[in-house]
């Protein structure tokens, strides 16, 4: 596992809440926690209902989960901070329940009308 691969761990830890343990996050990143056969059996009929084969469903639920949400350049910044983050997380100083305001985020684009072929490039 490369240093870059460790980044999702950092991202998760930054947002760590009481609902997820460090163990869960680490095991997900290391893919040591495969989808259980029972869960797979639960999901397959949902895919079948929209015409997906078992193979298609299995393929899509075995990929990387949707945990990345930062621009790629920020990942390198995160590498620098990852050790600090791990320490902070370990002592539970993530401030999960501290009230917060969010600064409005400006996202240009057409995502609220409809997507363009250009958006996929």
């Amino acid at each position: 596992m490369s240093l870059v691969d460790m980044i999702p761990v950092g991202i998760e830890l930054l947002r760590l809440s009481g609902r997820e343990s460090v163990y869960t996050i680490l095991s997900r990143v290391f893919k040591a926690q495969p989808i259980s056969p029972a869960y797979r059996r639960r999901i397959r009929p949902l895919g079948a209902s929209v015409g997906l084969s078992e193979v298609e469903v299995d393929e899509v639920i075995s990929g990387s989960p949707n945990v990345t949400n930062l621009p790629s350049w920020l990942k390198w910044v995160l590498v620098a901070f990852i050790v600090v983050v791990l320490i902070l997380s370990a002592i539970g100083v993530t401030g999960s329940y501290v009230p917060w305001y969010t600064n409005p985020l400006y996202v240009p684009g057409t995502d609220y009308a409809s997507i363009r072929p250009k958006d996929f490039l």
Partner: protein
Amino acid sequence: MVRPGPGCAVWEITLKCNLNCMHCGSAAGKARSDELTTDEALQLCDDLKGIGCQGVAMMGGEPLLRKDWPSIAERVREVGMDLSIITNGYKITESKFQRILDVNPELVTVSIDGGHAAIHDKIRGVPGSFKEVVATLRRFVKSGLPTGVITTVHKMNLGELTTIRKLLLGTGVAWQIQMATPYGRLTYDHVLSKEEYYSLALFIAATRKKYSKKELMIAGAHDMGYFSRVLPPLQVYPWQGCQAGISTLGIESNGNILGCLALPPEYVEGNIRERPLKEIWNDSAFSSYTRRVRRTDLGSECASCTYSKICKGGCSAVSHSMAGGLHRDPYCLRLIEAELKKSNG
């Protein structure tokens, strides 16, 4: 305080429509009695540019039924904003088609809700509409205009996705899939269940995986997602919370302004006939439900989620309609996965 302008203003230029779609969130049909005049609409184009708006999506109703739509489209282009047109693709005459080519939009989008005429026509309320929209789509594609397709999914057309996919494969269109919400004409009994919603997410994810972008460009809209523990991203751009009043702006055909057109009338926060657009947009109270979100505004499950700060409780329109309040969107992949896991024992 002067804010950056919206990336996209979604503008219902008329409520008039020649179809009668069962899922229409605006219950479009007849034009509003007090729709903006041509002069007012042209002035609004200038005002949008004045607040720094980058693009306008003209929609309706059926926008191409408004007689002066070419003038509005041309003004949008003249002042330097991007233009997209969302049409139902029905009764697009040759002269209308030529006018669309003349204004050269960045994108033209048609709505396809079924892979078979029987389903599409039933949903759209007019026999023959499927045949026409497919023909219109082919004309757009052939003309080289960047083309999109929107499919709004509810119980009646969930089973149509693979057929629509076949229709769109290799055409070079961008396919946007969104969930129908119970506003306007859509009744609650047609809204997808959470499990059906998850099936839809699986379909998008599986299709993205199976086909290259050259074969088919597909993505979920703003109400599809987010932060799955299992599935890869469904959207083109990462979800960063509801963008109503931040990077998007909704305009009704009578000049009413709201953060997002998908929201119901109680979210109207001004009218350009009573107050300049600039003032409405820069008002610190405008769209405060998205511009200033506090953790305490979030529903309990959202507040305790790892992604609360980014997600802010999902799509406002879905949250309001399906949970009775904002920032608690129950159609959340992460939440549904937890429920599925629990129900699985």
